[in-house]
């Protein structure tokens, strides 16, 4: 008789990463305490274990970092592009060499599965530096006129969902184009940025070119408001993005924003069903759904609703939730208690508003921040869970009858970051893709990323593009 094939624990060794008990701010090539000596703790979301104590930057520290970046700018921007390129190539190579260490670190600090940090985050981080390294001495050919100039000091604020990847998306194009940077990582995931500082040291990057200031929203606000910052780049929530847009209003600071989303994943009745199920799962459960471009709204043609939902539920039952360091874990921990509370509240609201909630049988660890993969059926456009970004492993399932209706529902949101289309009919893909108001359209696939491929949103999902030739524009003095 058949017996259960239980996978024994297969933990990745955490011995590969050596986390210091405390870290300072990385300013002008040196680690230093905050001026007022403040620190905060960063924990592993999977266990709530304190990983390290990190300096909390205040206004004075941010100012010092911006001044260091300003001082470094003159020489850095005057370097031949080919020399800047070589620094970036060095960084890319060192990231590849240290990728397992960084993957484990990221998993510890963020809570996401090692399978993702190892197979998605880290390869993309290295690839991003490789890609932009090659641009540094080819800017004349990028379509922004001859000898396009950098902006100066870039103030960059990044989120906790892909800490090192978002750092790469910010720092690689900034340095390639000759800017210097002050980057503030998210409060709950500061460690990989601090390890990146060490990579800058190994690459012998001139001091002050990259500065890392850890801290909370106040440090970010100080950085963005700093009068000597020429460029502001932010990835995070739409609410904060709007606040930033107001802050830089009336200045000459160039702004790019990568904000929230409520991506529609549209499944037509002629879809390649098994691959669509995988795409739906990847769309909303990759990184515990803490992805701005998540396919958080499933729009399924009514005629296949029941069978698709059966397949989807069966598939969700195979998801493995637990220790993020286990190589077989599919669903890791939610990044913070705060985020968990938000997800919980929105899911509860979905239930209260009458949507039908379902989760596979799934045992949650007793410590750490966890949320079972969840889907809601009987959801309409009027439900909060169909409109608000949940940023968690929660899928809202809606139906449609015709392609027109699918497009209308997909576009019926203030956001416009991503969308998915599943059909075997090529002309329908092109027609629907053409009508969707979103910056990234995945047809018969989902959540694919590449440094050559521009990424960014329409409407309230922000403006500007990261990746590809388009990604250079944000850091060049052109409009």
């Amino acid at each position, binding site marked *: 008789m058949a017996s259960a094939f239980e996978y024994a624990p297969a933990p990745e060794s955490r011995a590969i990463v050596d986390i210091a008990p405390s870290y300072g701010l990385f300013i002008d090539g040196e680690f230093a305490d905050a001026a007022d000596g403040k620190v905060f703790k960063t924990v592993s979301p999977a266990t709530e274990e304190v990983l390290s104590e990190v300096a909390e930057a205040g206004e004075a520290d941010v100012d010092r970092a911006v001044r260091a970046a300003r001082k470094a700018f003159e020489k850095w921007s005057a370097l031949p592009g080919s020399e800047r390129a070589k620094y970036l190539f060095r960084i890319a190579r060192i990231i590849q060499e240290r990728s397992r260490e960084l993957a484990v670190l990221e998993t510890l600090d963020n809570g996401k599965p090692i399978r993702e940090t190892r197979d998605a985050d880290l390869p993309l981080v290295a*690839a991003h530096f490789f890609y932009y390294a090659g641009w540094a001495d080819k800017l004349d050919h990028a*379509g922004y*006129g001859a000898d396009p100039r950098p902006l100066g000091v870039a103030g960059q604020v990044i989120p906790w969902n892909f800490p090192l990847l978002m750092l790469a998306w910010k720092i690689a194009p900034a340095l390639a184009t000759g800017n210097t940077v002050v980057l503030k990582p998210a409060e709950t995931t500061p460690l990989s940025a601090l390890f990146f500082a060490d990579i800058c040291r190994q690459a012998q990057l001139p001091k002050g070119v990259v500065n890392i200031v850890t801290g909370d929203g106040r440090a970010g606000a100080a950085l963005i408001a700093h009068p000597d910052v020429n460029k502001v780049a932010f990835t995070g929530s*739409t609410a904060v*993005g*709007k*606040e930033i*847009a*107001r802050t830089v*209003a*009336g200045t*000459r600071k160039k702004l790019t*924003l990568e*904000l929230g989303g409520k991506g529609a994943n549209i499944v037509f009745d002629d879809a390649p069903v098994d691959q669509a199920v995988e795409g739906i799962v990847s769309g909303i459960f990759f990184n515990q759904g803490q992805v701005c471009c998540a396919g958080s709204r499933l729009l399924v043609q009514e005629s296949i609703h029941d069978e698709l939902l059966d397949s989807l539920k069966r598939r969700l039952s195979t998801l493995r939730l637990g220790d993020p360091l286990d190589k077989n874990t599919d669903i890791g921990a939610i990044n913070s208690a705060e985020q968990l509370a938000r997800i919980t509240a929105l899911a509860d609201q979905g239930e209260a508003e009458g949507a039908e909630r379902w989760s596979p049988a799934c045992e949650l660890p007793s410590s750490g921040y966890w949320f079972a993969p969840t889907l809601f059926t009987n959801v309409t456009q009027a439900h909060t869970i169909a409109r608000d970004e949940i940023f968690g492993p929660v899928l809202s399932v809606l139906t449609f009858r015709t392609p027109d209706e699918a497009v209308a529902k997909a576009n019926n949101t*203030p956001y416009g970051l991503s969308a998915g289309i599943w059909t075997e009919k090529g002309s329908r*893909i092109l027609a629907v*893709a053409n009508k*969707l108001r*979103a*910056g*990234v*359209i*995945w*047809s*018969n*696939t989902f959540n*694919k990323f*590449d440094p*050559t*491929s*521009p*990424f*960014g949103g*329409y*409407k*309230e999902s*922000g*403006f500007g*593009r990261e990746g*590809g030739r*388009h990604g250079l524009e944000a850091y060049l003095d*052109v*409009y």
Partner: protein
Amino acid sequence: MSTESISGSAAGRLSVLKTYKLYVGGKFPRSESGRVYEVTDAKGKWLANAPLSSRKDARDAVVAARKAFGGWSGATAYNRGQILYRIAEMLEGRRDQYVAEVADAEGLSKSKAAAQVDAAIDRWVWYAGWTDKIAQVVGGGNPVAGPFFNLSSPEPTGVVAVLAPQESSFLGLVSVVAPVIATGNTAVVVASEKSPLPALSLGEVLATSDLPGGVVNILSGRTAEIAAPLAAHQDVNAIDLAGADEELAKELEIAAADNLKRVLRPQPVDGAGWSAAPGTDRMTAFLETKTVWHPTGALGASGSSY
């Protein structure tokens, strides 16, 4: 146009004056407010009464622009190019009228005004040619590291509020409106506050150039008054602040943050002024980039190069 020619008294005949009206949704309404303001030439002589647009006029113009967006953005680039070129043709035929209006509005000599109008007509021709080229210049395939076809294409951002430059009443106006609509956006244009007549007259040309109603909507009045509701409007996707002074621009940029409009700040106009050759910047400022992925796979099941 000189005051003499308006009154026509020299010829012993009283001429027929034009009632300047707004251009909204392809029609020529008066302001909903029922109010007008006096427009004078550079020396202060009365030229006409222009409609004093209210926030409701702005609202109506946005509705018209939104309604026109689907059709205009969905038209072929070739078709948009044909229509923009048609605008140049129509202007050419009414060149003398615009020369007179610009001369009055900006206090220019006939020849200098003519140079402005000629440059404006040529600008329509320049952008007419861009409609079916910009996608090739700023879009393209991306060589992603996987079995995927990956294409980035520019798309119009939507409804764009355009504050036309205050000084250059016609060439400046055309220089900011043409790039917005060339790529498929629709526009709500606030004419130069002090010199709105060339802008209002442009509506007459647009209406006879096969340009669908609502693609360009032209309002006259107090820039700050009209711009405020446009900047705050949740169904406007972008705003060009060319005609705003520093203080107003900041205020509008703050309001525009409410729905994260794309904001084109006032750009320094160099020595050549609006006569300088435009680049692609004014088009790309109101373009989104859409990137579409699709698996390629292999021809057979022997394994794609995944």
